[in-house]
């Protein structure tokens, strides 16, 4: 059984507001999941429910194949929104409290503080920490039980660039050890850098769940550069496999209609006397794919509404 988490038709209503609407998806072992969605799309509420702090209105979920209970939570490490610790306790004492709750030995505390580079500050009070250090301490706390699943909700929110890079490094390190990670973020760039899978939420509904590369079926586009741009554009326009050719300064970007290898294209162009100084084949980045997905979803809903 490699399914770590199964969410089945989960809903949460706050009065008349539907924060989470009938969400179902599952999380497989060893993958890094990005939980995507604009602000207010229900990410934190969903996480709150599967972590037992928000009562669901409807629906169920199963951790490790069993219905939820607090014992499952002891195999999970989670940080929601912002680091929550006792401000008057030192880093070490705070982690001792967490260790007692999770029923793990105190001997791991130093090791985890080392992982997040806080060992030298272990006797300082939490209230004296910078936001980046607080966030790192939260990660240390989440790692204390060597969790099978790590849940991070906006872990780089409010951090400076160095802090962001540091957290990202730590996440990557943890992912490399084979830990399943669920990373909620509205920073797509962040998710793109570390995630293999995504779950996309919009207005409380899950609109996609799967591998990042399958998120859209488009073939991608080429970025090309050469000395004689006009001739290049001319040749490309006469080829059948492009649907859109756009020229920007000295770079031409050509969107594919039928698949074509970069090597193949290069060969064709050389035969026509064009020598490239720039050749890249890429896919739309996550941000564009995400926006397309949300746009499609909105279009479908509008169309449905019109039909009704």
């Amino acid at each position, binding site marked *: 059984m490699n399914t770590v988490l199964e969410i089945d038709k989960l809903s949460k209503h706050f009065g008349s507001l539907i924060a989470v609407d009938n969400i179902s998806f599952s999380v497989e072992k060893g993958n890094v999941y990005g939980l995507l969605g604009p602000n207010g799309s229900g990410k934190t509420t969903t996480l*709150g429910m599967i*972590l*037992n*702090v*928000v*009562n669901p209105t409807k629906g169920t979920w199963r951790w490790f194949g069993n219905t939820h209970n*607090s*014992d499952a*939570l*002891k195999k*999970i490490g*989670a940080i*929601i929104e*912002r680091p*929550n*610790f*006792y*401000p*008057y*306790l030192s880093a070490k*004492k705070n982690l*001792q*409290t*967490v260790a*007692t*709750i*999770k*029923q793990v030995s105190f001997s791991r505390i130093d090791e985890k503080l080392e992982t997040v580079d806080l060992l030298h500050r272990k006797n300082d009070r939490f209230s004296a920490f910078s936001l980046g250090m607080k966030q790192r301490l939260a990660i240390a*706390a989440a790692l204390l039980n060597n969790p099978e699943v790590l849940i991070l909700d906006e872990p780089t929110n409010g951090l400076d660039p160095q802090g962001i890079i540091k957290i990202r490094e730590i996440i990557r390190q943890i992912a490399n050890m084979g830990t399943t990670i669920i990373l909620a973020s509205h920073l797509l760039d962040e998710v793109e850098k570390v995630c293999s899978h995504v779950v996309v939420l919009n207005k409380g509904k899950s609109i996609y769940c799967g591998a990042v590369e399958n998120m859209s079926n488009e073939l991608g586009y080429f970025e090309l550069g050469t000395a004689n741009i006009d001739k290049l554009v001319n040749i490309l326009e006469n080829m059948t496999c492009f649907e859109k050719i756009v020229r920007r300064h000295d770079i031409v970007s050509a969107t594919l209609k039928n698949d074509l290898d970069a090597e193949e294209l290069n060969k064709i162009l050389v035969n026509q006397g064009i020598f490239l100084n720039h050749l890249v084949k890429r896919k739309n980045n996550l941000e564009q794919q995400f926006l397309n997905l949300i746009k499609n979803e909105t279009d479908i809903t509008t169309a449905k509404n019109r039909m009704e």
Partner: protein
Amino acid sequence: MKQILRLLKIEWNKIYNYKTARIFIIIYFALLASMGYLVTVIKPSVDNMSLDLARFGAYLFPYVWQNITYFADFGSIFLGVIIITNITNEYTYRTMKQNLIDGLTKKEFLLSKLLVSLIFSLLSTIIVFFACLGLGLVYTQNPSSIFKGVTFVLGYFLKVSVFFSFCTLLAFWIRRSGFALMLVILWRLGEVIILGIEQISSRSSFHLSNLLPGNASATLLPFPGIKLQNFMRGGTVFSLSDFHAEYCIAAIVYIVIFIVLSYQLLKKRDL
């Protein structure tokens, strides 16, 4: 048992390392423990005459049981404040949410807070018991029936426990220490006023508002009876009040109600 120790370990870490709480607790228990000595030294002066309560027989068996427990009860407000802040802090720091995410159940969370209250009230009761016993033994010439009136120690324990569980409920409900504390005080005043109105308007010796939580537990620990006639005849000023065992049941029922309501609040609310 192992679970209880685990919960206590968590609470110890939270409370003992909180400087204000630690200082308050130490002062409270130090005062309570030295009370047996302090009451004999402090002699309030009335009309330039020092009032030595010992001369009025305040520390004689069996009156000492009622007098000292009644007096000691005032200290419980200190611990009430600590119990309230210990809970409301968990909301302010949002650590309760984190505790639950880390794998503590809501039941365990409530239990850990209740255990602290229980330890506070047990420890206070034990200290008060020995203070009364010590004073009585020192001042009573020929102690014949030492344990007559010892039921007031049970009354003290129950009264303090009702108060602590009430504080717990209000802390969970209001989530702000200042307002919770204010409500504790207002509630008590309200009960006293209601009882006063009932006493004025009804001649019966039974008052319905005596069944309210504060009044019911106050009935367990009544103000020491003073009978000047006795003193004139060469006896002691004090007289032993009746111990109302039936109000013990009321106290226990209230403790259960407050705990159940706290749990319901905790269970129903999203964090």
